[in-house]
Every structure is written in C-alpha cells, then in structure tokens.
C-alpha cells in the first residue's frame, strides 16, 4: 500500500474525531444539552395515570390508544394498575395537572423534533408558556 503511514494516521484521526463526543463524555465531561421537563408546582409526589417510566417511554402510545378507545369504542375510563380511575381526556385529565405545557411537554418535543398536532383541537386556551 502506498503512503500507508499517512492513510492509517488519517483514518485514525478521522475515527477519533467522529467519536469525540463519546470520549468527551467518557472522560467525565458534561454531556450535551438535555431537555429537562419541569413539573407544574404542587405535582411532586403525585402519581400519574401510569408509572413515570411507562409514561416517559409510551405516553404517545397511551394517548393514541385512548383516542381510539374513546372515539370508536366509547370506552372513556382508564384504570391505573392500582385501580384509580381517570377520564381519558387530554385537555381535562392530562393538562389539568400538567398545566405548564411549555415547560413540561414542549421542551422534549422540541428537542426530539416532534410536532404533535393533538393541541390543534384539544386545548381550551393558548398553551401556557409555549416555547
């Protein structure tokens, strides 16, 4: 191979550059920007309709399920695993507690670049503190 020294050095340099963010974090550097959703005041310690981990990962699936069940099957009550009952309603159940949609919802949605259009219709007023 011609110029093997240069080529291999170049490849190595390229690999290091590309993986630099990982090395940086591994070396104890502060990771990049992470959105931090903020709970509305007074919500600490309160339980959501499902566990925090479930809601964080699957709230969109749950909302889609709610939508279909309410509109198409007329099933309007959600039972939590611990037996608590909730009306399936984005405006009147979710947003009642999570009233600070700008700080709670939009932060992550903006970060991951999703634009849910639920709120085009399901809202009673202009979203508070929308970012």
């Amino acid at each position, binding site marked *: 191979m011609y110029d093997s020294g240069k080529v291999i050095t170049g490849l190595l340099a390229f690999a290091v550059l590309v993986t630099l963010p990982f090395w940086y974090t591994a070396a104890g550097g502060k990771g990049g920007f992470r959105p931090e959703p903020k709970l509305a005041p007074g919500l600490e310690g309160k339980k959501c309709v*499902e566990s925090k981990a*479930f809601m964080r*990962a*699957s709230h969109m*699936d*749950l909302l*889609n*399920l709610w*939508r279909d*069940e309410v*509109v*198409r*099957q*007329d*099933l*309007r*009550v*959600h*039972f939590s*695993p611990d037996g608590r*009952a909730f009306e*399936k309603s984005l*405006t*009147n159940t979710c947003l009642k507690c999570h009233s600070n949609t700008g700080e709670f919802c939009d932060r992550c949605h903006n970060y991951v670049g999703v634009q849910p*259009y639920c709120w*085009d*219709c*399901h809202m*009673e*007023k202009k979203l508070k503190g929308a970012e």
Partner: protein
Amino acid sequence: MDEDRRKFLKLAGVAALGIGSASLVKTVNGKERRSGKFPQALEGKRWAMVIDLAKCQEHEGCTLCMNACNQVHNIPHFDDPRHEIKWIWKEPFENALPNQEEDFLEQGVSKGPAVVLCNHCERPPCVRVCPTQATFKREDGIVMMDMHRCIGCRYCIVACPYGSRSFNWQDPHLGLGDINPGYPTRMRGVVEKCIFCEERLAKGKLPACVEACPYGALTFGDLDDPGSKVRKLLKSRYAVRRKVELGTRPGVFYLV
C-alpha cells in the same frame, strides 16, 4: 445465491414484522390496562329523537336548542353561508319534509320551519362511502365521526341526502367565541355533524338540544325499548321521517 438472498429477505421481513408487533404489544398492551365506561352512562340499542313540530313552532324564532348545541360543541359561526358549520338548524317545512306538506293541515305545521339534524340512519349512506371509516355506525345506532381519521374527501357530504354534514373550509377557530373546554375543537379540512351528543350520553346526560328545549319539543330515547318516551310518542301520535323512500331509515321522527 439469488435464491439465498431471497430467502434471507423473506426471513428478515417476517422477523421485522415479529419484532414490530411484539413491541406494539409491549408498549400498548404490555401492562394489564383496563378500560371502562362511566357507571352513569346511558345505554341504548337504537337511539332516536322525536320532534314535536307543533310545540316547536309555537315559539317562533326560538333558537335555544341550536345555541346550546353550538356552545357545547364549539361550533364556529361564519356569516358566509358557504363556510357555515351546522349540526342542528331550521329548514322550511317543504325543504325538510318535501311532499308531506298537504296531508296534515290540522296543526298547520307545514307553514313553519322544521328543526333538522343528522338523522342517524339505520343504513347510513355516508358510512358506506367513507373511504377511511372515519364515519361509522356505533352499536347503539349513533352515526359517529372520528375527526382523527377524516381526510376531508367529502364523499359523505355528497352521499348524505339530508345535508347534515358540514365541511371546515377554513380554520374553525376563526369563528369561535368562548370555547367549551369540555369538548375539542376541530381543524380545517374535516367534516363534522351532529353526533347525538354521544359524549354526554357517556356521562349520563341527555343531548344538549333536548335538555335546552324548555317546551319539551324534542324527545330522546331508545327505539328498541317499547317503554321508552320516544316509543310512547310514536304510538300515540302520527309521525313522519325525512325521505323514507331512500331506504336510509332515519332515526329522527317528526310529529305532525
């Protein structure tokens, strides 16, 4: 070699499908999650409405039922008739019940207007033509709209012989005053119509128009129940329906 690749792709496809459906089950149904109805929900087999035209026409210019409906369902108001959104409104008798004018003159109802709304047909033509099943017939007879699935093709508007459906040509928020937070608004490009207040029935309440009429001109009930108010009215009074000759079997009756 090609054969092998083909097999591999097939296998990969099936595997991907398996993984996909497994994750769907996990995220949506992975946990035991129960759904139900409100205990106070009104249940029926065939919801229907009976409109007493003579009682209604005693109060000329009354719009209480329409106001209640518009308020409850966030129905926008546009002056331009091409943009109108209508769930319940008044039509001249000869338009609402054509060719039925002359027979029932004793009450004189054919001179005044008739309240019209979606007939919640037993054989709804709108449902037959909807390409996305956005409009469908529920088990209790209500012809329901799923705004999430509506693609705005307006086949249903063409199919409906009663003109019961309206299309949102522009953003309905432009024509809204106070918004009722208990009911969603709509967006531009979807069709809407009366849904017999299924969201109120689910909470044990009668339709908003029925509740709003202080004169008892509107009666709501289950056609399937021989003891229901609507059946009693239909037994004791002569009733007509709109365009029965089309075979849609409307669920809205007019006492004339």
